[in-house]
């Protein structure tokens, strides 16, 4: 993908980043499609919708409709909002079921009160944290987004927003504005110990104060509470530990520990671990 390893949010506003070429590339990338489907599934799961009826959902930052397709598959209706005309064009080409709006959610959610049974957003909300224009104030835009979203949602419903926060300050800013707008709830983190698999879902409740669902992959975290690690890059950590000399016993032990934390199967550490082998080995 464009600018691999760096955050797309640093390269400019979303309506320019997701131009025609990028929109096409994004939607055709099988890895992107798969990840978006997985995250959409998890987000809809976290919504806790009633099982017996079709619901009307709002998809914030719907893009080319990858997440919307999953909502339709589950038998629900949706209305999507996105700021990139190119992405919406791709959605129209793909003949998605939901209705689309060209809009900037930082300006507010243009719906009457209590219209939606739920809201999801996949990989979009962090774009609100960047001031792409001189007049932008990210906290103001975030508050406008959350307060109008709160109004547009029905009582007892939820908003589940998957996002890629750049650092803990961003996370705090987003959460604070959401709470100011009247939401309860908090952050659900799946696979907190895996750099690649870790995903953040901001789970917000309207009206009721429900219990926050548990993040996946947290059962093995039985030691002290972990600090959520943030990175300037969206995917892998690069120089996390400052390099132990490669292939030394320490490096091997660290690597095995890392893999254990990710839940992978690792042989036990013994006196033979990292032992110097005979030259013929």
């Amino acid at each position, binding site marked *: 993908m464009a600018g691999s390893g760096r955050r797309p949010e640093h390269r400019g506003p979303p309506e320019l980043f997701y131009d025609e070429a990028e929109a096409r590339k994004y939607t055709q990338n099988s890895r992107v499609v798969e990840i978006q489907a997985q995250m959409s599934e998890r987000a809809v799961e976290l919504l806790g919708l009633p099982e017996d009826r079709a619901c009307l959902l709002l998809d914030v930052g719907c893009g080319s409709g990858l997440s919307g397709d999953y909502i339709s598959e589950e038998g629900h209706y949706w*209305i999507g*909002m996105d*700021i990139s005309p190119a992405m*919406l*064009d791709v959605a*129209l080409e793909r003949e998605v079921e939901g*209705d*689309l*709006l*060209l*809009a*900037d959610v*930082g*300006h*507010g*959610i*243009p*719906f*009457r009160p209590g*219209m939606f049974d739920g809201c999801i957003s996949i990989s979009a909300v962090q774009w609100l944290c960047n001031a792409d*224009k001189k*007049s932008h104030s990210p906290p103001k835009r975030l508050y*406008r987004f959350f307060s*109008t979203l709160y109004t547009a949602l029905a009582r007892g419903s939820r908003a589940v927003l998957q996002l890629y926060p750049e650092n803990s300050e961003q996370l705090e800013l987003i959460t604070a504005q959401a709470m100011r707008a009247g939401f309860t709830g908090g952050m659900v983190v799946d696979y907190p110990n895996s750099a690649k698999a870790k995903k953040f879902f901001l789970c917000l409740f309207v009206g009721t104060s429900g219990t926050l669902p548990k993040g996946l992959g947290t059962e093995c975290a039985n030691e002290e509470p972990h600090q959520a690690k943030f990175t300037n890059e969206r995917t892998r950590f690069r120089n996390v530990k400052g390099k132990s000399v490669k292939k030394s016993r320490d490096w091997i032990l660290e690597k095995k520990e890392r893999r254990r934390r990710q839940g992978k199967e690792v042989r036990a550490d013994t006196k033979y671990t990292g032992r110097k082998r005979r030259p013929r080995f």
Partner: protein
Amino acid sequence: MKLLTHNLLSSHVPGLRPGGGFPLRIELGHPSELPPEPVPDYEGDEEFLRRVHHVLLEVEVLEGSLQCPDSGRRFPISKGVPNMLLTEEEA
């Protein structure tokens, strides 16, 4: 844009009166054939319900605009997608 979506939309320009900005008036390039007032006791009328379902979920507005009843501000619709982007002064 389906008419059901239109029923839910309201103008999000700040500073309107409470409950304002709704309903947005649909302006098409040509006269439409929307049904008149509902007859009393419409819940039992199958034919009417079928037509309402058709109008709400199967008729789409492709080109035209939505006009705010309070400010007169127009939101254009193109290829079925309403453009709700506000200028920086409005927001």
